[in-house]
Structures are given as structure tokens and as C-alpha cells.
């Protein structure tokens, strides 16, 4: 009996220990996690920040100092660049180690290693897209450049110095939740983060959908509904700009254009293209500002997550003094300013991703047909480790164009990221090319004038960005920058025959012939992801860019702006006015026959008629209009362009607006699935009713829950969607077609305004905080300011000796 009792209780005790030390599904190992000596309680940071500290590092070459301002933003001052980037790596890791680790795992297809089987398709996808392949080539290129190699090495050493200083109880909380350990940082991780930007900003493609449309409706419909230049545009490079260069010869279209006959694969669902990854920037010449000195503003829009996407920092060494935001995991400043220049970026929607059909000789896939002969494929074997299961081997075949992302019948059935990928095609993507983009930022961080800016941009490849620029010499400029392949018109609009060499990319647009404008007569430059140029530019970049609405609104307001100051630029960044509403609301309202409306549809109609077309948080009209116009687009196109078997996309918003305004009798209004002949007015009315009815269904009879801020329901989730680590509901305004391009969880990831001059002032804010620790008071301390559309004045130390009463703590760093 005693043995029995001893055995039972021993078993209970040991079982408890073992079970509580295991991660079960998504539940962390509870004993380990709750243990107040090593578990999550250790990540609870005091409101009081560390007092002054002295740190020593092996490998440090001189001395450095880190001064923290009241938001714990580090201002790093070093004797030499090695120590500077070392300290940047150290600080960034201290604040964002888990984010850096998770994002590089995500990019390189190594998530299954920590979260188990559920990430296997994602991991395969990232590897098949060649993310690591591209990052490795980038590292090789960086190694050829001594300064950049030193920069990467210093940053890496700094990150690792931090990692090596950690005891298990010090690990960021997400490591404890997911029950894994940080591993050493490598330069390829930094490269992966830049590739991740390419995947986010230049990783989309329409070719598969467009080919299906071409097959179904023929070239005339494609030309009509998917034109190569929009109905309304306000290009980034003003139309009056002259191209003062002699263009190189553009390759001729391949004669066969086999696109029409390309077979496409089936069993794939349509993905409605998501808009919202875009940005605004502009620069004003001194002639338009109150101070007489130029100003620059930038707000890059991304899918927002916590920890904050960007990491604020100031870096001071003997050859530079730069301030702004960095990518957690990469050295230098990406968007920012120094004492003489400021720059900001928005995405360029150039076509830098194409698909080529692949014909293998046989089942071994060792050879593929190209240029009238069999050519060898290259194999890349991906070994995917999986937590709690055996590793999976995945073979990816590469042609000279790139990886065959999915072989026939290989694509997973329910994996949204792969929806627009055709099976049996090789991917030609700029993100696979060797490039040294870090040099661009290295040089911009040190730029003194316009010619330094131009020189820096020569090294930039991807993701292509519109670099707006302003300097203290009163120069302003904007340059869509990147590696733009030389293409004939519509080259890569459709899937291409991979066996025909004529279809390949043949070199690039000479970098000095990339579109650019300096000091235009209108005294400002701007961009909002719209077309880079008008059709007079001698090269083809793409057939479609983001809608013109934001850019046009910015240009309208900047044109009439004079004596501009920080407040006027801030009000423009927060502008909620909808160009789309301006364009179509009058037509929509005049087309509704109010006789058939029920009481609540009548009441809503009255509100809409009085609505000022601003997507402010408290507007009910904005909610009704947004659902209305979206449903109207669906009702027009859904019957013709949503086919389970052969996925397609809808014509653009621009083309829809053009048709609504100018083609009242177009055949596309008719719903082909009904015997009745629907008209434009029928659809406008039915979509209007849908909009009011759906609001009523969600929120009850009209009440304050119908207000746009609530309907949009902005919030910022945690990067790994951990409940409790995201933000709460943020009641703000904005819309996809407003300058303040805010949607549910997508919007301005950083807002910056720089007023250059002797007494330079800079302002900025991001939705988050400097710390990546959910247990820190600095994790989300800027969200309130951001949500209200306000900015923080950025502390910019003018020199090593310039101190400020905003500094609350100072660390001294030296060699061991």
C-alpha cells in the first residue's frame, strides 16, 4: 500500500513537471513560462529606465556612447563606423531581437522549425520563391564592397554580442511563448530582410489572371478593360518634363507571342487584389515654404504590426550624422535626414516579376527545352526542419530564368499566397539578382547634395522606390529608382513561352535614364505609387500602377500651398478627402430612384447627400459610400471575371470609374447569370440597398456604430498574432483612396516631416514604440500620438558634443 501511494504521487509529480515543461499545441510550457524566476514575469520592465551604464565589447575598436531620449530612441555616437554599426546592431537586437529572428525565419522558410507542421506550406513557398537564393547572391555582392562588408560584419557582431549576453530568463517573451532559443545572427539575415521588402512591395503578379482573361475574352477586351495607361493619371514626373537622353534600343516583341496558346492550370481560387501597400512622399522647394528652406514629407504604408515595423535611430560618426528609421535587422537608416539632405521613399509598381513556361524533357526534370535545344536544370534541395516531426526534403528546379515555383499538380489547394502562381512556370524576379542596395543607403546617409543623391541611387536595384529628395541648397528631386528591365510594351503582361529566348529580359534601362526630375517649375515633387511618367517616356515600366487618386489630391493641395510649414504638411498627411467620392458620388446619387427605398435606406440617402466626402472617423456617409462603391464594382464584374476554374481579376478601379461616367450602356452591367437585362442604374440601386442593409445587419438601425472609424475598425495586430500583444481599437479616419490611406490594419507605418535649414526641425511617429517587448512601456507609447494624426518632434543631436535635456540615460561603450 505504501509503495502504491509513493508510486502514484511520484507519478503525479513527475507528470506535472514533464507536462508543464512541454509546449502543447499553441499553449506554452506553463511551468517554464509562469516561473517567476525565468519565465514571462522577467519580461515585465519597470517604468523607470536603466540608469547610466558602462558596457565593454571584445572587438570594439574605439569608444562609443548611446544617449537615450525620453522615448528610449538611441542616439549613437562613435569614433569610427565599425563601432557605430556594431552599436546599432547591439541596440536593435536589444529592442527587437525576436522580431528580427521571426522575420528572417519567415523570409527564409524556417518557421516550421519553431511552430511545427502548420507552417510547412508557407516554408515551402518562401523557399520555392527563391528568397534564400536571392539573399545569398546579395551577400556575395556585398562582400565585393569593402565598406559594405565591414558595415555588415560590424552590425552582425553587435547583434551577436547582445545574443551572447543573454541568459534564458532574458530572452524576449515570444521565445518563451514559442519555446525556442535565439540563434547567432548572420549577414544573410540582413539580406533576407531586404528581400522580404521586395516580396512585400514587388512580389505581386497578374500574369496568370491576365492570360486567363486573354484566353476567355480575346485581345480587344483586354485592350479595352485592361489598358496600358489609365483614364485619369497625374504622373510622378510632371508631364512637361523633357527626356534629355538618347534612349537605347528596346528589344522587339517575340514574333510568336505564344501567350494566347499557353495552357493554364486549374483548381485555384481567385484572389481579389488587395490595395493599400503604397505610400506618399513629397518635397517642397524653399519658394513654397514659410522659412524659405525646402521641406520633405514621407509616409510609407504597410501592413501594420507590433513590434513597430521601423526602428528609430540617430547615428553619428566622423563622416556622418544621420537620423530616421532603420529596418530592424539591417544597418544604416532607410528613411531620414542628415544636416544637409532629407529623403523618403514610396513604392514603384514596375513589372520586375515574370513567369516563363517550362517544358521538361522527361520525368527526371534534369533538362528543359530552350533555344531549340535541351538545357540542364539546376537543383536546389531544401531541407525543412519541423518542430515535433521529421524534416521534409523539397526539391526546387531552376531554369536560367529562375525557380519553377510549383510543378504541375504541385500547388497546395488551400494556400492563399500561392493563388496567383501558375503551375509549371519558372519565376524571373529581380529579387534573385545580385545587388548591393545597402550601398545606396550607406551613401544617402552621408549625402551632402544633389549629386551625392544621384550617385547613391545608381546602386539601388529592388524593391524599386520613388526616392524624394531635398537639400539645404534648395534642390528638390524625385527619382523612381531600381533595376528596370528593358521591355517592349506589355512584355510580361501575360505568361510567356519560356523556350523562346526572345521572351527573356535583355538588360536594363540605363540607370541614368531612369525617370527623374529636379527642381521642376511647380516647386514641388511628389509621389503616391501612381504611374512614374506619362506615355512620352521612351521605356515601358508596367501597364498598371496604383490609382492616381492620392497623388492627384496631394498635387492639388501642394499646387495651391504657399508659405508651407510643418502644420500644413501634417494636415496633408492626415487628409481624409476621397477623390473617388468626388469622381463618382454625384453620378451615384443622381442615379438612385428614391421611390423604392425603405425608411432606413431613405434616411441613409439623406446623410450621403450631405456628406462632405471626407473619410473622417465620425462620418456615417463614408461607411455607406465605401460599402456601396465596393459592392457596385463586385456587381459589375463578378459575373464575368470570377471563374472558379480559370481565375481572373477585375478591371481596375480607374477603368470602372471611366465606364460608370462615360459608358452608361456598356454590356458589362448586365448580369449574365440572369435572364433580365440589368442596366447601370439597376446595379447602382441594388448595391446601394446592399450597403445600407449590410450596415443595418451588422450594427442595428442607424446609430453611432455606423461611423466610419468603427466600421473600418483599425487596430494593429502582433507580428505573430499573439492575443493581448496587439493594440486595441484605434478610432481614426482615412481610406484607401485618401492621402491618409488607412484601412483596417494597413496604413502609414511611419510619418515624417523634415524642415531643412540652419535650425532644422524634424518630426516623426510610427504606430508602436521603440521597444519590441510587450512588457515595456515603450512598446506602444507612440500609438496614441499616431492615431490622433500628431507627430513627435525628433531629437537631432547636431554633433558629438551637442547634448540635450531630452536625454534621460547614457551608456558608454568601449573595447575589452
Amino acid at each position, binding site marked *: 500500500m*505504501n*509503495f502504491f*501511494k*509513493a508510486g502514484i*504521487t*511520484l507519478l*503525479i*509529480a*513527475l507528470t*506535472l*513537471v514533464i507536462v*508543464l*515543461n512541454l509546449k502543447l499545441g499553441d499553449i506554452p510550457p*506553463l*511551468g*517554464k513560462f*509562469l*516561473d*517567476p*524566476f*525565468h*519565465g*514571462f*514575469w*522577467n*519580461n*515585465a*520592465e*519597470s*517604468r*523607470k529606465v536603466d540608469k547610466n551604464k558602462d558596457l565593454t565589447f571584445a572587438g570594439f575598436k574605439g569608444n562609443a556612447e548611446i544617449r537615450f531620449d525620453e522615448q528610449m530612441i538611441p542616439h549613437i555616437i562613435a569614433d569610427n563606423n565599425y563601432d557605430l554599426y556594431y552599436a546599432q546592431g547591439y541596440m536593435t537586437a536589444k529592442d527587437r531581437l525576436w522580431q528580427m529572428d521571426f522575420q528572417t525565419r519567415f523570409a527564409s522558410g524556417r518557421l516550421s522549425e519553431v511552430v511545427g507542421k502548420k507552417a510547412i506550406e508557407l516554408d515551402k513557398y518562401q523557399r520555392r520563391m527563391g528568397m534564400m537564393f536571392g539573399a545569398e547572391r546579395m551577400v556575395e555582392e556585398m562582400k565585393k564592397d569593402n565598406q559594405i562588408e565591414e558595415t555588415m560584419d560590424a552590425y552582425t557582431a553587435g547583434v551577436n554580442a547582445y545574443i551572447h549576453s543573454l541568459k*534564458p530568463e532574458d530572452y524576449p*517573451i515570444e521565445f518563451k*511563448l514559442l519555446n525556442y532559443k535565439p540563434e547567432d545572427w548572420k549577414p544573410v539575415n540582413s539580406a533576407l530582410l531586404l528581400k522580404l521588402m521586395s516580396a512585400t512591395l514587388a512580389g505581386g503578379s497578374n500574369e496568370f489572371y491576365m492570360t486567363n482573361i486573354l484566353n476567355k475574352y480575346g485581345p480587344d477586351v483586354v485592350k479595352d478593360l485592361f489598358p496600358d495607361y489609365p483614364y485619369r493619371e497625374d504622373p510622378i514626373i510632371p508631364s512637361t518634363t523633357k527626356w534629355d537622353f538618347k534612349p537605347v534600343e528596346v528589344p522587339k516583341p517575340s514574333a510568336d507571342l505564344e501567350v494566347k496558346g499557353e495552357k493554364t492550370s486549374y483548381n485555384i481560387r481567385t484572389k481579389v487584389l488587395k490595395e493599400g501597400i503604397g505610400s506618399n512622399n513629397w518635397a517642397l522647394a524653399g519658394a513654397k515654404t514659410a522659412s524659405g528652406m525646402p521641406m520633405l514629407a514621407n509616409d510609407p504604408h504597410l501592413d501594420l504590426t507590433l513590434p513597430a515595423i521601423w526602428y528609430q535611430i540617430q547615428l553619428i560618426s566622423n563622416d556622418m550624422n544621420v537620423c530616421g528609421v532603420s529596418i530592424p535587422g539591417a544597418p544604416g537608416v532607410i528613411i531620414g535626414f542628415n544636416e544637409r539632405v532629407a529623403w523618403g521613399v514610396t513604392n514603384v509598381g514596375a513589372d520586375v516579376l515574370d513567369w516563363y513556361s517550362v517544358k521538361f524533357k522527361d520525368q527526371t526534370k534534369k533538362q528543359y527545352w530552350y533555344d531549340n535545344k535541351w538545357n540542364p536544370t539546376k537543383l536546389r534541395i531544401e531541407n525543412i526542419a519541423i518542430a515535433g516531426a521529421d524534416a521534409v526534403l523539397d526539391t526546387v528546379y531552376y531554369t536560367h530564368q529562375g525557380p519553377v515555383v510549383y510543378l504541375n499538380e504541385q500547388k497546395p489547394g488551400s494556400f492563399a499566397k500561392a493563388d496567383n502562381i501558375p503551375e509549371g512556370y519558372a519565376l524571373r524576379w529581380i529579387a534573385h539578382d545580385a545587388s548591393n542596395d545597402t550601398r545606396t543607403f550607406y551613401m544617402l546617409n552621408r549625402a551632402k547634395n544633389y549629386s551625392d543623391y544621384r550617385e547613391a541611387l545608381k546602386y539601388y536595384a529592388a524593391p524599386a522606390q520613388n526616392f524624394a529628395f531635398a537639400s539645404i541648397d534648395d534642390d528638390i528631386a524625385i527619382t523612381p529608382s531600381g533595376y528596370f528591365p528593358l521591355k517592349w510594351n506589355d512584355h510580361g503582361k501575360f505568361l510567356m513561352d519560356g523556350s523562346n529566348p526572345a521572351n527573356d529580359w535583355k538588360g536594363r534601362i540605363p540607370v541614368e535614364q531612369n525617370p527623374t526630375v529636379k527642381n521642376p517649375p511647380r516647386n514641388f515633387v511628389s509621389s503616391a505609387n501612381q504611374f512614374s511618367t506619362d506615355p512620352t517616356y521612351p521605356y515601358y515600366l508596367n501597364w498598371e500602377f496604383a490609382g492616381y487618386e492620392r497623388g492627384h489630391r496631394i498635387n492639388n493641395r501642394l499646387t495651391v500651398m504657399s508659405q508651407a510649414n510643418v502644420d500644413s504638411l501634417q494636415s496633408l498627411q492626415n487628409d481624409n478627402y476621397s477623390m473617388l467620392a468626388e469622381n463618382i458620388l454625384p453620378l451615384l446619387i443622381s442615379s438612385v430612384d428614391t421611390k423604392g427605398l425603405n425608411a432606413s435606406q431613405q434616411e441613409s440617402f439623406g446623410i450621403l447627400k450631405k456628406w462632405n466626402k471626407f473619410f473622417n472617423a465620425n462620418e456615417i456617409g463614408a461607411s455607406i459610400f465605401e460599402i456601396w462603391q465596393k459592392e457596385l464594382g463586385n456587381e459589375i464584374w463578378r459575373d464575368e471575371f470570377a471563374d472558379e476554374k480559370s481565375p481572373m481579376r477585375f478591371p481596375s478601379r480607374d477603368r470602372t470609374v471611366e465606364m460608370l461616367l462615360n459608358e452608361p450602356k456598356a454590356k458589362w452591367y448586365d448580369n449574365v447569370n440572369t435572364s433580365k437585362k440589368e442596366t447601370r442604374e439597376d446595379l447602382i440601386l441594388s448595391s446601394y440597398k446592399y450597403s445600407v442593409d449590410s450596415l443595418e445587419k451588422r450594427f442595428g438601425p442607424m446609430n453611432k456604430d455606423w461611423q466610419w472609424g468603427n466600421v473600418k475598425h483599425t487596430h494593429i495586430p502582433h507580428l505573430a498574432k*499573439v*492575443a*493581448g*500583444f496587439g493594440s*486595441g481599437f484605434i478610432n481614426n479616419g482615412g481610406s484607401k483612396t485618401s492621402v491618409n490611406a488607412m484601412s483596417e490594419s494597413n496604413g502609414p507605418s511611419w510619418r515624417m516631416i523634415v524642415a531643412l535649414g540652419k535650425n532644422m526641425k524634424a518630426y516623426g511617429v510610427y504606430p508602436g514604440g521603440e521597444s519590441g517587448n*510587450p*512588457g515595456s*512601456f515603450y512598446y506602444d507609447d507612440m500609438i496614441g500620438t499616431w492615431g490622433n494624426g500628431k507627430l513627435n518632434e525628433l531629437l537631432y543631436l547636431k554633433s558629438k558634443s551637442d547634448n540635450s535635456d531630452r536625454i534621460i540615460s547614457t551608456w558608454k561603450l568601449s573595447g575589452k
Partner: protein
Amino acid sequence: MLFLFIFIACLVFQLVLPWWIICPIAMGLAFWKAKTAGNAFFSGFAAVFLLWVIVGLFHSIPNENLLANRIGQLFTLPESQFNWVIILIVTGIIGGLVAGFSALAGFYLRIAFLKPARV
């Protein structure tokens, strides 16, 4: 007495060793010192419950319970300013149960092997 021994030993050893060290500590000390089954279990439970709650508070108070409240949401509690109380009690109970059962096992092991006079 046993309570105090477990409390102090766990405090010292946990500074350097992983959380499960509370199991052998409670087991060993109960093997040596426990008078009854009840005495073993409750000494182990109370000592570690109290220890973990106190150390949890030591971290959480300067943090104004910010993180513990978030952890409440992570464990699907609704957003509240008082989640931390629940998380703190759960923390104490988890540690307490492990130590309690370990101590109980220690006590029964002794009577199984050493057959003390009291039984």
C-alpha cells in the same frame, strides 16, 4: 518548519536552476522532514505558491502589471486592468501543485522505504 525549508531552498536554487528544481527540492525536504501526508502537501504547496507570488509581484509591481494584464488576454481572458491578479494566482497554483505533489511523493517514499514509527 518544512514550509520554511522548502521556501528558502527553492528561492536559492531557482536563482540559478530551471523551474523544475522545485520538484526534487520539495521531494527531498519532505522525505527528510515531513510529518504527515497533509503536512508534506500543504508545506510544499504553500511554500512555492507564496514564493512564486512574491517573486511575480516583485517583477510585476514596477511594471504596473502591464505585461501580466496582456498575458491574461493571451490566455483568452477579456481585456481588463485586473487580469494580473488571476495570472498571479494561476502562477502560484501551478508552482504550488508541482511542489505539493513532489513533497507528498517524498513523504510516501520515505514511509515506503524507511517505515517510520509514526505510521
